[in-house]
């Protein structure tokens, strides 16, 4: 008895699942390619990981789509969009980009997926970001706070100072004249 019941139950569950999948497929087929934009936890000094997941109308991951990440710039009138980076979706339909802003706080993003030059999906997100210095690190020794940079700044400032001293010395040298007793 138990076996036929199990079989019937299994058939019922399987049928419902197939029906659900079929309905889902129909629903998906009637929609558009989707792009879900997500942001990871912001890490000061590292950045904020942005992830765009691009799925086809059938729910399958879209591979090879170019996702352009943009950020709203509230400092400009109308808060226009500034492109901050691009990434290509992998086999899972995921395109990842780490945003390294020089400010912290809530920021609005737009991600646009394109395939073959045509836009296929767009997603928006407002997330909090952490302040990051994209140029920080030991390899950038030429920065003014790097080793070479510090020396360069010191040398350049010394050069400027030397020029000012030389210029003033030239004026004083001419202005002071020479003792009249020795000259005709």
């Amino acid at each position: 008895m138990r076996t036929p019941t199990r079989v019937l139950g299994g058939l019922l569950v399987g049928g419902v699942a197939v029906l659900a999948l079929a309905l889902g497929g129909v629903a998906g087929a009637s929609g558009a390619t989707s792009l879900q934009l997500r942001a990871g936890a912001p890490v000061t000094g590292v950045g904020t990981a942005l992830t765009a997941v691009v799925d086809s109308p059938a729910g399958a991951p879209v591979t090879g789509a170019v996702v352009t990440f943009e950020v709203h710039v509230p400092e400009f009138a109308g808060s226009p969009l500034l492109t901050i980076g691009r990434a290509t979706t992998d086999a899972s339909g995921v395109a990842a980009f780490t945003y390294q802003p020089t400010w912290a706080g809530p920021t609005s993003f737009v991600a646009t997926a394109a395939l073959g030059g045509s836009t296929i999906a767009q997603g928006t997100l407002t997330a909090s970001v952490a302040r990051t210095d994209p140029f920080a690190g030991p390899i950038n020794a030429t920065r003014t706070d790097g080793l070479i940079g510090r020396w360069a700044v010191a040398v350049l400032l010394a050069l400027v100072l030397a020029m000012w001293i030389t210029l003033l010395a030239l004026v004083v040298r001419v202005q002071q004249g020479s003792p009249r007793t020795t000259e005709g």
Partner: protein
Amino acid sequence: MTDVIVEPVPSEAHPVDHELRHAVLRPVLETPRWWWPSVLVLGAVVALGIVAWIFQLAHGLGSAGYNDDAFWGIYESNLVTFIGVSYGGAVVSAILRLTHQSWRAPLTRIAEATALVTLPIGMIFIIPHLGNPGKIWELVWPPYWNLSSPILWDFFAVSTYLMATIVFFYLPLVPDAKVALEQLDAEAPSTRVKVRQTLYRTLVGRYGGTPTERRRLNGSIGLLAIMIIPMAVSVHSVLSFAFASSSRAGYMETILPVYFVVAALYSGVALVVISVAAVRKLFHLESYIASRHFVRLGFLMIAFGAAYLYLTFTEYLIDGYSNTAGPAAWVHQVVAGRYWVPFWFYFVAGGLVPLLIMAIKPLRTKTGVTIASVFVVLSLWVKRLVIVIPAATEPLVRAATKASGGVSTGWGTYHFTWISISITVAATAAIFLLLLIVFRFVPALSVTEMEELAHETRTQGGRS
């Protein structure tokens, strides 16, 4: 070391050229009839510029044609142009001094004065350019210094160069101030005489004109002439860093520093020619400034002009040939797009016309060279606009709110307004106003230098 750069001092006192002294000192001692009307007219134009600036302070940078899509415009072009022309005056004088060109004598004072007055006017453009003048404080006050910013190094370079320009104007003036002081002692006392006596005494200090002092003076001038050339090169190349260190096509060019320097020399020599022509006419110095002075300056000018044309060709060729999206689009906009009129105006009026005038012998006169110089100054100002504005209007930020549905990638637009035009015209008038004022107090020609060189030419059989 100074022996190398010291010019020879005549072993005996040079003879005094009374006619020259009279001609040169007359405008200092007597007010020419045209002087006050000219000062009033030029002063009114400068006042209009100040009114326009106050209007801008009240209504914002938008009133001067600036917007989000054109964040740099006329003021930045003016800053580069005015500082550039000052560079020409100083370097021309320095080169002629170092190469000991005897024909330089009537030109150096005018060239140095032109450098002296144009540089501060160029520097002033940073104030309307910033919008809020309070921001100047953040540039000059050390706790606010951003040593990574090219703008701060611009400030160091330009202020040091300003100091050098003042000293370069002052040192050759010392013996002339002594001559003028002696001349004033014979004049009847009046307020005008007293003001000038006080000024000249301050300038002269304890300088007595002895051979040792003269040698020391010439050594100092020679050393300064050497210093001022690399200093001027650094000023204008550092000025270009503000453009070249950005990530905009048209700005991010490694050729820009040398391009700026050559443009400065080209337009600077042209402004010296215009100043020399004006001073010669107004102060009746026709006997001392001849056609040959204009023609020699004209040759110097077109040498720089040819180099500038070549650099323009190089820049556009490489950017266009690479066919990368940003630079190629920028070249297209400038040469064949929305900026083709100003670009080709520069090419014809600032490149070809001066070359033709100097190439055709009947045109190679003082009038011809002066006309060519006016073309050069005007067209090089236009060229600076072509450098500044197209790249500034390049659409790097997508204008989501535009009527085009939020995906506009169109180029921005900069408009001239009466505010920005008035301030620009006022600054140009200020150059001539300051020159008129300077030459009311100091001789327009270097009297002692002319006497010394004339004496040297006579005794050594040199050419003038």
